[in-house]
């Protein structure tokens, strides 16, 4: 399909999200608005007519679970191959493991925890248009943290790690520098030759790397082969490619290797891509190239392009990579980015499953979701929260800004605010939870005041 292959990196049991994910619930299946987070990516891809996907999952068990869920949910809709890779190989390792399945010219790599409505085609098209080696999707990070609760100290930290320091050319198409916000201490280093080549470098700190990359397959495979130590796409491969874009070792070496293997045909391919690349820079360069072509084009192949596609601010884009992000995304998906959830909202701007039972004088505010089989007692109040399946909630319970997963029991008089409550938790009477982001699995709690 347009010579693109799609790899979804669905991760495994991420440690960062420790209590939320477990052996039973790998990261990909973490419910966001009562739907596994992976479904958002799959549906985004499906809406772009990308139906042949490779999903890479860390760990055999997790792979089985993810595969089982996909085959249940997407039979007849998608053609998904699930590959299991050992745990802790990192994103680069995961790609190494499936590299031999990649045959298309370019590979689109999407992180499985992306919740977004940015069309992947836009990234792919930008990639193609520039003939880039790698194109990454940058987006304006959504507002972090709940707006009405003040945990500013923690928020800053979260923010820092989510944003990236990005260097762009004046046209905002070429990616000249990238560093994760958290890694930057005080100063960033920018290569002089890049600066000289572009003339002007725009450094921005308000953009987030959304983990949707389009890679040229040969380059990606070469980098993965040659740099054994590379662990992560984001932290190793992408910065490496960006760093070396003007003194490209990889693409030159790689392409020459390919040329040796299959003479003639491939070299003419190179010739064409090279031609197109250079025509962009100098419109009249094509005849220079014909003059040069008898010689091997190694000098000219020393550069490669790294591009960025910046999603417009109106698009929603978030990654579920922290617990804060988890509650943010949950809030947004039933709130401002409600078109992503795929549910139809009631006139009160909330979703209440018909099988849910509400007691008398119980109010469910806007931007809430109440899944099937949940029961609520009297005089409860739910605001901007998501309540999972088959929860039992007693009377006089207040739930604000929280995510309550499945099969949770909350007894009378509890107050839950800004918290995430995992599945099968039992909260006994008059528990007060405030900003408690990871409430343990299967633990039960009595009268704790946190």
């Amino acid at each position: 399909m347009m010579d693109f292959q799609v790899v979804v990196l669905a991760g495994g049991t991420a440690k960062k999200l420790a209590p939320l994910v477990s052996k039973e619930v790998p990261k990909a299946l973490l419910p966001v608005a009562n739907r596994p987070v992976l479904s958002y990516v799959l549906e985004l891809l499906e809406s772009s007519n990308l139906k042949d996907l490779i999903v890479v999952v860390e760990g055999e068990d997790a792979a089985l679970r993810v595969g089982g869920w996909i085959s249940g949910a997407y039979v007849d809709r998608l053609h998904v191959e699930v590959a299991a890779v050992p745990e802790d190989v990192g994103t680069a390792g995961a790609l190494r493991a499936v590299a031999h399945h990649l045959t298309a010219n370019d590979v689109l790599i999407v992180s499985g925890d992306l919740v977004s409505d940015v069309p992947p085609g836009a990234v792919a098209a930008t990639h193609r248009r520039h003939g880039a080696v790698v194109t990454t999707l940058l987006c304006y990070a959504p507002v972090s943290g709940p707006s009405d609760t003040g945990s500013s100290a923690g928020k800053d930290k979260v923010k820092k790690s989510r944003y990236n320091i990005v260097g762009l050319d004046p046209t905002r198409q070429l990616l000249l520098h990238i560093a994760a916000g958290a890694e930057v201490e005080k100063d960033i280093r920018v290569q002089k030759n890049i600066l000289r080549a572009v003339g002007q470098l725009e450094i921005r700190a308000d953009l987030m790397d959304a983990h949707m990359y389009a890679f040229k397959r040969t380059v990606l495979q070469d980098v993965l082969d040659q740099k054994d130590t590379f662990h992560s796409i984001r932290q190793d491969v992408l910065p490496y490619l960006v760093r070396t874009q003007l003194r490209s070792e990889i693409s030159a070496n790689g392409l020459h290797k390919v040329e040796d293997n299959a003479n003639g045909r491939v070299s003419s391919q190179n010739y064409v891509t090279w031609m197109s690349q250079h025509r962009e820079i100098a419109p009249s360069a094509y005849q220079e190239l014909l003059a040069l072509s008898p010689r091997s084009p190694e000098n000219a192949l020393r550069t490669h392009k790294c591009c960025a596609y910046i999603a417009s601010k109106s698009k929603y884009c978030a990654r579920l990579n922290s617990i804060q992000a988890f509650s943010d995304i949950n809030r947004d998906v039933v709130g401002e980015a409600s078109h992503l959830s795929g549910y139809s909202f009631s006139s009160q701007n909330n979703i209440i499953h018909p099988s849910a039972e509400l007691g008398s004088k119980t109010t469910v505010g806007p931007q809430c979701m109440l899944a099937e089989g949940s029961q609520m007692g009297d005089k409860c109040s739910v605001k901007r929260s998501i309540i999972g399946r088959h929860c039992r909630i007693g009377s006089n319970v207040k739930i604000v800004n929280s995510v309550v997963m499945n099969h949770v029991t909350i007894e009378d008089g509890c107050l839950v605010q800004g918290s995430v409550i995992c599945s099968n938790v039992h909260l006994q009477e008059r528990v007060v939870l405030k900003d408690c982001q990871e409430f343990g699995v299967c633990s039960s709690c009595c009268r704790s005041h946190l």
Partner: protein
Amino acid sequence: MDVRRGQRTVIDPKVRQVGFVPAGATRPPARSHSVPTDACSSSPPAPELPLSGSSLSPVMIPPPRHSSADGLPSLSRSAASPVPIPASPLRRDTVQIPIGSYNPSESVLGSSPMISPSSRLDAVSEFSDEVPTSAWLGRSGSGKFASSFPSSSGEMMTMKITGGGSGGGGNTPKSSLTTASVVKALPGVSEKDRGALIEVQNEGISKPQKQKTSKAERRAIQEAQRAAKAAAKEAGEAVKPSASSGGALPASKQGKVVKPSSQKKDGPQVTAPVVPSEKKVGDRIPDKDRKKDVPHPRMQFDDKHRVEKAKRRAVVNQSEARNRVELFRHLPQYIHGTQLPDLESKFFQLDPMHPSVYKVGLQYLSGVISGGNARCIAMLLAFQEAIKDYSTPPEKALVRDLTAKISSYVSFLIECRPLSISMGNAIKFLKNRIAKLPHTLSESEAKSSLQSDIDRFINEKIVIADKVIVGHAVTKIRDGDILLTYGSSSVVEMILLYAHELGKQFRVVLVDSRPKLEGQALLHRLVAKGLNCTYTHINAISYVMQEVTRVFLGASSVLSNGTVYSRVGTACVAMVANAFQIPVLICCEAYKFHERVQLDSICSNELGDPDVISKVAGRNDLNHLESWADNENLQLLNLIYDATPSDYVSMIITDYGMIPPTSVPVIVREYRREHLWI
């Protein structure tokens, strides 16, 4: 192509050959551009002309065909009258022609000096005679598509399934894929397939759907037309053996097809006449050839109905700009900035498009590739890629299917940016090569032969042509010259650099203009190579011109009346140079020549993004027009091209030598068939 022979010696006999063209016809006085009656009075008697002329815009010169058709009213009416107007779109077009709808492509043919009135009339009547046939062709085509559809899609499915199976089952050392979900009905694939087919089908069907006449009616029409034709033949006794007109003009017809007009609709129609004309010999061929003589009207973008229709077919989201300058409403103008993101986001939905073609389209749209040669090469290379990856679907002939494919690619490229004439010629060449493929060739042989044809075209028509032009032009540069050039032309750049390498002492005056400021890049390259340059904007042209000794200009195209169609501003530069009596040398490869005749830059032009002329980048204090785009009283005009009358052109340097502008038709006529078609 003897370069050493002097200019006059080459040209003179040829000029005499073209001599049947009166000088006044090929080179109308510049004054007549805005005076329609002037032009009309020079053409044959036209009783109804004031009437038809009144509907025209004052600057448009009605094509002589009107007058000729009106001059023989009985014939043209007898051909037209028995036909109910809504019979078919084709029919409607032919009916409209005598009524006086003005189409640039029509005028091309109508005013083309090569056709005598009689043959022209003959062409009209022949054409109408062909209507039922073409409709029938279209129907049969669609029927065939429909019948072949299920089987082909079924095969696709099985192929896909086995492919998936092998992919999953391939025992690979590293990690094997387990198929989690398989699309049972494979809706994606079938949909994809169907999408492609529907598109093709649409092309085929569009005609029969609109044709609502019954069989008897059609027969009646046919009879009437036949009678009319016979009458026409008797009347115009001097009907030429159609070899001369019919031979020279299919090219023009094919050229028209490439135009944005009704490209998709024409797709099968182009292929249809080409293919059978090879198999069926005899009296059909001249018919078909002559049918091609009647050009298809170009899409007029002020015709709301047709624009709507075209929009529905369009791949690229085209929202039309609102405030367009009155005179240029017939040209497409879209709100820039809306197309690219939309097309990009649809990247994966456009299955029938080959990735390389898509890439080139994106590059046109984003302006990454510009310039006639660069665009042409990019397109040809994309087609080469597409041909390499092409495989004939079952039950289809390569010749037909590939031509249809190329046509669909071309229409996509047109949506991204209107074609340049050089590209039109290249497409013509490619389609011609496809049509002329021997049937004995296997698919791979045919493909490799086409690929090498494309390579050869690029090499011979562009690269070597440029070298020859440089060789010619350098002889015109003397020590101490001050050369003026405008904008950024690749050939002129090569000439200047080569002359510099030869050690000639000269200075370059580089004239540039907003908003593209293409000259700056050229200036950068020239100065880097050590040339002595003066850079100025076109506002200062009358001052700089005083010291200049030669003007070298590039061209997008040279038309057969010697008009040079080039970057807007070229005409101004040439005119000023002419006023100062400084020779103007146009450097243009012969593959950019076109048999069209154009007197103004209105009827065929391209509109750029109006925003770029209203905004000054980096000068916020000058942006007085910000957010004025919706003001009804403001219309912004950003023209891309203009036409330089041949009066201002001293010489055209081309790969066939240095010629006066009057000799362009000779090149077009004499060298086209043997050389361009190789």
